[in-house]
């Protein structure tokens, strides 16, 4: 196995913490909209977890500036590098935009955004029914897009690990 430079420990911690949070979030999101009995419990987790992801993605972005990622393995072609960079950008973007769209759509509906107890978020958009409806749809579409991006990411790392065998996973392994 070729030696690979690893991501700094802080970056790896942020990556795996957020991986768990985002996957949990996508699963809760897709399950809650088809649930009657568990709807309230799932929504009550969905909102604070979404805000936690929003905060962490900002931390992660700052960390990326302080701790730049190691160079990509030399085994990767130009096209692969571009795909990797694009999917990384997409995931950063979605981690930022999805919670903001969620916060925005509840704001447009003037739906209280309770995090815990009496702690609630301020509204970030004007009260507008149609704006709510559009953002609500966008929230779903972006979430599916996120799941597809995750699948591409997961498939790519499996491919590198099992077929190319260039030690790509070691860069981020905990």
């Amino acid at each position, binding site marked *: 196995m070729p030696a690979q430079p690893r991501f700094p420990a802080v970056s790896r911690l942020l990556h795996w913490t957020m991986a768990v949070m985002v996957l949990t979030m996508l699963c809760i999101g897709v399950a809650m909209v088809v649930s*009657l009995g568990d*709807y*309230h419990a799932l929504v009550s987790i969905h909102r604070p977890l979404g805000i936690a992801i929003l905060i962490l993605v900002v931390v992660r972005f700052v960390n990326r500036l302080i701790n730049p990622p190691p160079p990509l393995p030399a085994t990767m072609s130009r096209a692969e590098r571009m795909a990797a960079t694009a999917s990384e950008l997409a995931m950063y973007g979605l981690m930022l935009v999805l919670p903001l769209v969620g916060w925005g759509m509840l704001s447009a509906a003037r739906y209280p955004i309770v995090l815990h107890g*009496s702690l609630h978020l*301020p509204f970030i958009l004007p009260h507008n*029914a149609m704006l709510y409806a559009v953002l609500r749809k966008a929230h779903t579409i972006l979430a599916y897009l996120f799941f597809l991006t995750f*699948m591409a990411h*997961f498939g790519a790392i*499996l491919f590198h690990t099992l*077929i190319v065998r260039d030690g790509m996973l070691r860069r981020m392994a905990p």
Partner: protein
Amino acid sequence: MSTHLEAPVQTQRRPLSTASTVARLALIGVALALVAGAFAYLGGWLTPKNLTPARFTDAFQRVDGVHAGFRRNHAKGVGVSGLFESNGNGVRFSKAVVFHPDRVPVIGRFSLSGGRPDVADSADAVRGLGLQFNLPDGEVWRIAMINLPVFPFRTPEAFYERLVASKPDPNTGRPDPAAVQAFLDRHPETVQAMNVIKGQPLASGFDNSTFHGLHAFRLVNSTGASVPVRWVLTPMQPFEAASAASSGQAKNYLFDALIAQIHRQPLRWQLILVIGQPGDPTHDATIAWPAGRERVDVGTLTLDRVDAEETSAATDINFDPLVLPAGISPSDDPLLSARSAVYSQSFTRREGEVTQPSAITPADVRRRD
């Protein structure tokens, strides 16, 4: 991939045999399929017969049609507003800010059950009152009440079954009596609840109706102690029994009377907390708690303004019974989460639609001096 292996890597791996490559690719395929399958399962794609908020809302639309911009149930209504004056008696049971002795603004909506926004008023249609209390710390409390003392259905599934059975037969224009009877045979709790409902005299209008929160909730006070509770709004307008027949009445007679009454003088209700005892069922809205439970008057609701759907702030409020301030929590009643889910579905659908004019127009609610 062969071109990549020519790149200057430090250690060259032995090339994989064709069989090994195929096996490894299959493994990747299986891993991806498992993840996608788990996601699809959670999203309900593998269980298309399960009852979901969307299917529940579809059932309302099948029975009453799609009326763009309107609630899928309790479609006909008017907005009201006023204030709630708390007397402080609730502080003993709940730390919720709404129970501090103070006045808080309230927005509400009176409605009739069913998904038809142009339905003719009738005495036996279920009357609804949704309220939103805007608390000074920015918290919101929403309640959805009706004029029945108990709810006819114990579970969301039973409600759905009854809804499907109530779909009018295209030939007779009426629900199939056999389907309704079959439902009642399967649900003795509904028969029992209907008897309780029939045993209560029906009030003549919205103004003198008692509105029930139906579900149990839990109140938590500042020491952390928790009690089960149900709430009731009892009218301060004198009771008058509904006349035997609503036939011959104007199409909007219940709403017309409400509008005239509010213009004459503010309408008032007392908010009563019924405090449950250990062992009182909190998961079953079809059963009333035993008589003699402590009833605490916690304040007065005054409604002094009425607006048509076109101009009322209540129109774009989803009266989700689980929008609760700190100090009030849901009970284990399965209908609560289901209502929250289905209301949200109905809300999302109607907010994206261009609203048609409502049956009660802005001209109808204007004061006539």
